[in-house]
C-alpha cells in the first residue's frame, strides 16, 4: 500500500479532525476579527473551538499504529491531549492580551500554534513533522511582535525569529540526510530500513545516520532550549510578557521532545549508540548551566527562563535513558526513559504555565511584575496567589507531594535502570549513575532559587501592594494548573507514569529488535559508535 495514501484517503484525513477544528477556529477568528474587534468574544470562540476539538479527540479511538504519515498511536493520543489541555490554559492566559486592539490576531495565532503542537504529536512522517513544527513557530513570531512597541520586545521577537529559522533549517538538513540514507520520509519505513540492513550497507552509509542524528538534535535542542543552544531564551522571555513567555516555555518544548522521541529514539535505534551520548552530554550541560545561571537572576522571567533551560536538561535524561535502553541488554525497557520524559513534560508544563499565569495575574496590562523583589510580602498581601506560586515553585523543585516529585522520580528511576550490555564493560551504566547523581545535585541547586522566590514572598515585609489586575481569565488558567499539579502530586502521579510508559511502548513503529538482531547490531562496524 502506498504510504502516502493516508493523505488522500478519507480514513486518514478523518484522523485529523480535532486539528482541523482548531485550525478552522483560527481561520474563523482571523476572518471575523476584521469585522468585530471584541476583546473577549474571540477568546470564547477559541475556547469553544478547543472544546469541540477535545470532544472530537475523545470520540476517536486509539488504533494500534496507523501506518502512514499520521501516527495516531497511544503516544500521539497522549501528547495531543496534553497540547489541547495546555491550549486551554494558553487561551485563558492570553484572553486579555497586551495588544488590546489586536485580540483576534493574538487568539487566531495562538490557535494555529496549538494546532501545530497537536500535529507534531501525531506526525509519523518527516515532511508533516517539519510543517507542523513551523505551524508552531510562525504564529509565535506574530504573538511576540503584535502590539508591542518597546525596543526590548522587538529585540526579543527578532532574536527569536532568526534563531528559530536557523534551528528549523538545521533540523531540515538533518531530515535530508535521514531521507538520503533510508530513501523514505516515513518514520516507520525509516525504522524498518535502519534495522533490517546488512552490516555491509551500514558500513556503506558511513557516518551519515550519525550526522543526521546530530543535526536533528541540534535543531530540536533550540526548540527545547537546551544548552548550548539556549542563549536566546532568557533575553526573549525577559523582553516579552508573562503570557507569551508561558507559551514559549511550554509549547516548543512539548513539540521538541515529541519530535525527538519520534524521530530519534523510536525511528533510529541504529544510531542509539551516538544518541545516548549526545543526550546525556546535553542533559548534564543543560541542567548545570541552567541551574547555576538561574541562581544569580533577579528578573523573574529570566529566572524562569533559566529554570526552563534546566528542565530541558531533565527531559533529556529520560531521552538518554530511552536511547541507551534500546541497545539492550535483554529486558531493558526504552519506554521507561521515554515515558519518563513524556510524563516530565506534563509535570513541567503545568508547573511552569502555572507560575507564569500567577505572575501575569499579579501584574496589570500596563505594568507587569519584573523582579523577584517585587514579590516581597506577597504571602500577606495576596495570600492565595502567593500560595499558588509557592506550590508551583515547590513542584518545579521536585519536592513531594507535588507533581514535580513524580517527574524526578520517573527520570531518576529510568536513568538508574540503564544497564550495560554484557561483554561491553560497565561504562554505560556508570555514565548513567553519574548522570543521576548530577541530576540529584542539580535538583538541590535548583531548590535554592525556587526557595528564594518563596522566601521573598513569605519572609520579607511587603514592598508595595501588587496590582493583581491580570484579570479573571488568567487567574482561572493558574487555577487549572494548580489543580493539575496537586492532583498529579497527590493522586495520579504513579498512574500517569505507568500510563505514559504504556503509551510509548505501544507506539514504537517496529517491535524492539530480537536478541538475534541485537547481537548483529552490537557487532556493528565502528562507524556507528556504540
Amino acid at each position, binding site marked *: 500500500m502506498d504510504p502516502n495514501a493516508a493523505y488522500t484517503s478519507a480514513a486518514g484525513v478523518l484522523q485529523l479532525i480535532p486539528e482541523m477544528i482548531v485550525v478552522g477556529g483560527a481561520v474563523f477568528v482571523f476572518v471575523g476579527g476584521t469585522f468585530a474587534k471584541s476583546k473577549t468574544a474571540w477568546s470564547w470562540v477559541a475556547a469553544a473551538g478547543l472544546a469541540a476539538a477535545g470532544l472530537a479527540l475523545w470520540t476517536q479511538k486509539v488504533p494500534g499504529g496507523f501506518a502512514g504519515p499520521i501516527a495516531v498511536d497511544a503516544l500521539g493520543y497522549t501528547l495531543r491531549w496534553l497540547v489541547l489541555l495546555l491550549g486551554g490554559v494558553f487561551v485563558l492566559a492570553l484572553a486579555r492580551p497586551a495588544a488590546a486592539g489586536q485580540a483576534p490576531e493574538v487568539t487566531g495565532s495562538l490557535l494555529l500554534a496549538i494546532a501545530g503542537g497537536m500535529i507534531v504529536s501525531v506526525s509519523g512522517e518527516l515532511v508533516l513533522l517539519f510543517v507542523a513544527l513551523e505551524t508552531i513557530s510562525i504564529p509565535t513570531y506574530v504573538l511576540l511582535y503584535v502590539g508591542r512597541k518597546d525596543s526590548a520586545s522587538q529585540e526579543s521577537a527578532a532574536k527569536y525569529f532568526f534563531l528559530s529559522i536557523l534551528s528549523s533549517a538545521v533540523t531540515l538538513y538533518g531530515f535530508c540526510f535521514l531521507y538520503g540514507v533510508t530513501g523514505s520520509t516515513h518514520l516507520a519505513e525509516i525504522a524498518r530500513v535502519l534495522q533490517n540492513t546488512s552490516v555491509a550497507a551500514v558500513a556503506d552509509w558511513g557516518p551519515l545516520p550519525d550526522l543526521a542524528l546530530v543535526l536533528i538534535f541540534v535543531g530540536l535542542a533550540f526548540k527545547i532550549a537546551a544548552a548550548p543552544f539556549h542563549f536566546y531564551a532568557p533575553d526573549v522571555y525577559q523582553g516579552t510578557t508573562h503570557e507569551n513567555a508561558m507559551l514559549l516555555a511550554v509549547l516548543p518544548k512539548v513539540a521538541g521532545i515529541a519530535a525527538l522521541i519520534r524521530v530519534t529514539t523510536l525511528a533510529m535505534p541504529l544510531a542509539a549508540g551516538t544518541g545516548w551520548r549526545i543526550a546525556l552530554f546535553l542533559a548534564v550541560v543543560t541542567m548545570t548551566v541552567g541551574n547555576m545561571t538561574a541562581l544569580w537572576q533577579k528578573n523573574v522571567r529570566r529566572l524562569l527562563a533559566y529554570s526552563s533551560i534546566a528542565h530541558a536538561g531533565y527531559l533529556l535524561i529520560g531521552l538518554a535513558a530511552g536511547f541507551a535502553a534500546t541497545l539492550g541488554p535483554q529486558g531493558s525497557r526504552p519506554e521507561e526513559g521515554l515515558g519518563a520524559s513524556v510524563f516530565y513534560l506534563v509535570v513541567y508544563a503545568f508547573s511552569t504555565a502555572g507560575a507564569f499565569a500567577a505572575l501575569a495575574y499579579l501584574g496589570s496590562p500596563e505594568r507587569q511584575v519584573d523582579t523577584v523583589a517585587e514579590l516581597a510580602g506577597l504571602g500577606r498581601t495576596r495570600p492565595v496567589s502567593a500560595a499558588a506560586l509557592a506550590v508551583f515553585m515547590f513542584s518545579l523543585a521536585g519536592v*513531594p507531594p507535588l507533581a514535580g*516529585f513524580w517527574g524526578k522520580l520517573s527520570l531518576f528511576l529510568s536513568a538508574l535502570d540503564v544497564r550495560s550490555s554484557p561483554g561491553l564493560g560497565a561504562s554505560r551504566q556508570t555514565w548513567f549513575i553519574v548522570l543521576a547523581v548530577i541530576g540529584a545535585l542539580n535538583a538541590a541547586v535548583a531548590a*535554592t532559587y525556587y*526557595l528564594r522566590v518563596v*522566601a521573598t514572598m513569605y519572609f520579607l515585609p511587603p514592598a508595595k501592594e501588587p496590582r493583581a489586575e491580570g484579570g479573571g481569565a488568567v487567574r482561572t488558567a493558574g487555577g487549572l494548573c494548580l489543580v493539575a499539579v496537586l492532583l498529579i502530586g497527590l*493522586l495520579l502521579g*504513579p498512574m500517569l507514569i505507568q500510563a505514559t510508559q504504556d503509551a510509548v511502548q505501544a507506539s514504537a513503529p517496529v517491535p524492539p529488535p530480537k536478541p538475534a538482531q541485537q547481537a548483529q547490531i552490537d557487532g556493528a562496524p565502528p562507524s556507528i559508535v556504540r
Partner: protein
Amino acid sequence: MDSTGAILVASIVLPLVGAGMCYGMTRAGREVVRKVALAFTLLALVLAALVVSQAPRAVDPQPREVEGVAPDEFAVVDLSWGGAGEKTGQPAAFDVRFSLGLDGLSVWLYGLSALLLVTSVLVSWEQIDDRANEFYALLLLLETGVLGVFAARDLLLFYVFFEFTLIPLFFLIGVWGSEQRHYAAMKFFLYTLAGSLLTFLGLLAIVLWDYSQTGRITFSILALKQGLAAHPMSAGLQYWIFLALFAGFAIKVPLFPLHTWLPLAHVQAPTAGSVLLAGILLKIGAYGFIRFSLPMLPDATIHCAPFVLWIALIGIIYGALVALSQSDMKKLIAYSSVSHLGFCMLGIFAFNALGMQGGVLQLVNHGLSTGGLFALVGMLYERYHTREIAQMGGLAKRLPIFAFFLVLFTLSSIGLPGLNGFAGELLLLIGMFQRGMAPGPHGTQLLWIAVLSVTGVVLGAWYMLYLVQRTMFGPLREPRPAHGAPEHSHAPVRDLSRREVYALLPLVVFIVWIGVQPSFFLTRTSRTLDPLASSLDRRVGTAHHVSVVDVPSNNTGGLTSTARHDEISASGGPHGP
C-alpha cells in the same frame, strides 16, 4: 484494613484536615485558631494512643500468616496509590502503594510525635501572635508528615513524607523564627534536601536491584527486604548504596561534620519548631539507618560501622565540649543534641540487641528530655526576652515550678537512675562494650570507642548541671530589660502558668514511666529489633547473641522485675540463632 489500621490512617489524615481548617480561619483570630489546633492535636494523640496500645508485647506463639505483612507489624493498611493497577486487576508494573503500619521500631517514635505536637501547640499558645492561622496550619501539616514518616511501609511513601516535612518547617523557621531566620530556614532546607536527594537515588537503586533480580518493581519495604535476603547484593554495590543513603540520613541525625545546619536551625526556630526538630525530626535520620541501611545493606553497614562509630564518637565529645562553652541556653541544648544523637548511633551500630534497643529507646528519651528543655527555654525567653546564661542567676527563687521542671528534664537528659535517660544510656553503653569485647574484627578499636564515649556522659552531666547551677541557683540575678524597653518591661515575671505545666506534664509522665519500667517499652521494640540485631550479630561473626533478658533489669524494683523477666524471655527466646 483492620480497625487499628483505620485508626492509624485517621490519626495521620486528621491533622491534615485540621491544617486546612486552621488555614481557612483567616478572620478568627488566634484565640480560636489555637484552640482548634489544640483540639486536633489532642484528638490525634488519642487516636495515636489507641493505635500504640494495640502494640503486641511479645511474639505470638502462633504467628498469623498474612500475605505481605511481617510478623512484627500491626495496624497495617495497604491501599493502591491513585488506583494504579486496580482497573486491570493485576498489580501495575509501577506499583506505589499507600501502605501504612507500625512495628517495634516505629511504634514509640510514632507515639512520641503525637505527644510532642500537643506540647508544641501549648508552648506556642502566647508566643505566636502574628499570622496564627498559618502557623497552626503548618504545625498540623508537619504532624501529618512526621506521623506518616514513621508509619510508612512503602519506600516511596516514606520518602514523600520525609521530604514533605521540610516544607512546613521551612516556613515555621523562616517566618516565626529569630533574627537570622531567613538564613537558617534556607540552610536547613537546602542542606537536608541535598542529602536526601542522594538518599533518594540510593533507595531507587535498591528498588532497581530488586527489579533486576525478580522482574517486578516494588516499593514495599517488606518485599524489598525479602527480595534482598533471597538475592543478596554484591558488597561493592552495597557500599555505594550505603554511601548514598548515608548522605541524607547522616545530615538528618546529624553526624559530626554534617551537623552545622543544626545549631542554626534549632536556635533560630520558634520554640515549637525547636521542640519538633530536636524531638522528632532528628530521629528520622537514625530511623532511616535502622529501617533501610541495616537490614537491606548489612555487609556494607558492617564494613562501614567503625567509621560511623568513630564520627559518632567525635560528635559525642565535640558536641559536649561545644555545649559546655555556650553562653546561649538554646545553643547549649542544640549542641547537646549532637552529643546525644551520637550516643544513639553508637547503640544502633553496636549491632546487638542491647545496643540497638538502647539506641532506639534513647531516641525516644532524647525527644522527651530535649523537647522539654527547648520548651522550657522558650518559656524563659517569653519572660525575659533573652537566653544569655550570664544574665541569669538564682531564678529558682523567682520561678520555683520552672526550676523544678528544668532540674527534672536536666536529670533525665544526663541519665539519672530512675529516669528515662539512664535506661537508654546504660543499655546502649553495655551494648557497645559488649561489641567491643566480643571476638570479631576491630575489637580493640571498638572497645576504645566504648571507653571514650563514657567521657561524653561525664561531659553531658557537666554542661547540663553547670547550666542549671548558673541560672537557677546562687544569688538572684534577673536579666536587664531589653535595650530601649522601659524599665522592668518583662515584670512582673510569673511562674509557669497552668497551660505551661500541662505542656510539660505528659513528657514528665513518660520520663518517669520509662525510667521505672523500661521493660514495658522494650518488650514492644524487641519484636523488631531482636531479629535484626541477631542477624547482624551473626554476620559480624560473633555468634553470641544476648537479649534484653540477660541484663540484670535495672531500677525496675524487685517484684516487677521478675514478672517482666518472664514476659521478656518469651520474646527473647525464639530469636536465638
